[in-house]
């Protein structure tokens, strides 16, 4: 299951894109594409253990 802080947005603050991209509401920023694999729990990745943004937001 994807990270609850993940949204897909085409614009935020001063950045805008042609296609919606991974945006982290925990840090209020578009995330690097590689990090989006963690947000989406792809392959063996898991946002609960692998993402410091999630863990800090959850107080883990």
């Amino acid at each position, binding site marked *: 299951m994807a990270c609850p802080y993940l949204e897909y947005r085409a614009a935020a603050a001063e950045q805008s894109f042609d296609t919606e991209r991974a945006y982290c509401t925990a840090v209020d920023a578009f995330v*690097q594409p590689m990090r989006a694999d963690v947000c989406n729990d792809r392959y063996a990745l898991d946002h609960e253990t692998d993402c410091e943004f999630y863990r800090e937001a959850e107080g883990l």
Partner: protein
Amino acid sequence: MSYRAFLDGEPAVVTAALTGGVHGKEANPNLPETPEEIGEAAAACREAGASIVHVHARQDNGERSFSTERFQEIDDEIRARAPDLVIQHSTGATGAPDEQRLQPLRTDPAPEMASLDMGPVNRYHHLTSENTRGTVDTLYDEMRERGIKPELELFNGGQVTETYQFLERRDLVDPVHTTLIFGSGSLTRPTPENFLALIHDLPEGATFNTLGFGPHQLPFATMGLLFGGHVRVGLEDNVYYRRGELAESNAQLVERVVDVAETLGRPIATPDEARAVLNLG
């Protein structure tokens, strides 16, 4: 490779790392992500003096793709615009299984080269790109089967040791081609002393690219040129032209390093000269 090679005027091979698999347009909007953008960037880099393009694939939203079909689309766009470029596919990945990482090797035709990460690299705070010996062997075996020349990416000095062990396990075609990577985190600390130590510790006859991340890109490329090596530049490794100023394009970074080479009197290899230097085909 040595200062002697520089004095002898051996041509330098410039690799342009166009896209990468980590950051995207959120870091620099000029970073090419779609097949068409990558094709255009490759042609501009060819015009600027690059002979090899290092290719990663992305989905439409910028996220990573390992699919053969996406790499095929990219290669088609590159070949339509710059048919003589050497195409080098990335097989790098964090968290993805080997079967995903093999996909970029299965285009038709196969890429002439592909990257082979020689060991682990820490990513963010909780992740590691593992690159186990088993993964290295699996990726290499398919490269060998398909006639693809590996570019051994050495993230730190320990991976020079790994390279010697790898050469005991597998019989590579000469010259062994490496990329020495300098930067922060798991990478070799970017000092001239480390650069000199590593280039003198490579296997006999090996060629090397110099890759400095971020602000180290130009200084380490210059050292590579002076010591008979080859260079890799591009937005994958550095999104800035100078401090606080985003690069306008991959070609802008290629043009700058070609200008340095020309100032130093080091000739730049054409794609066919690069094929001869690296013994491709």
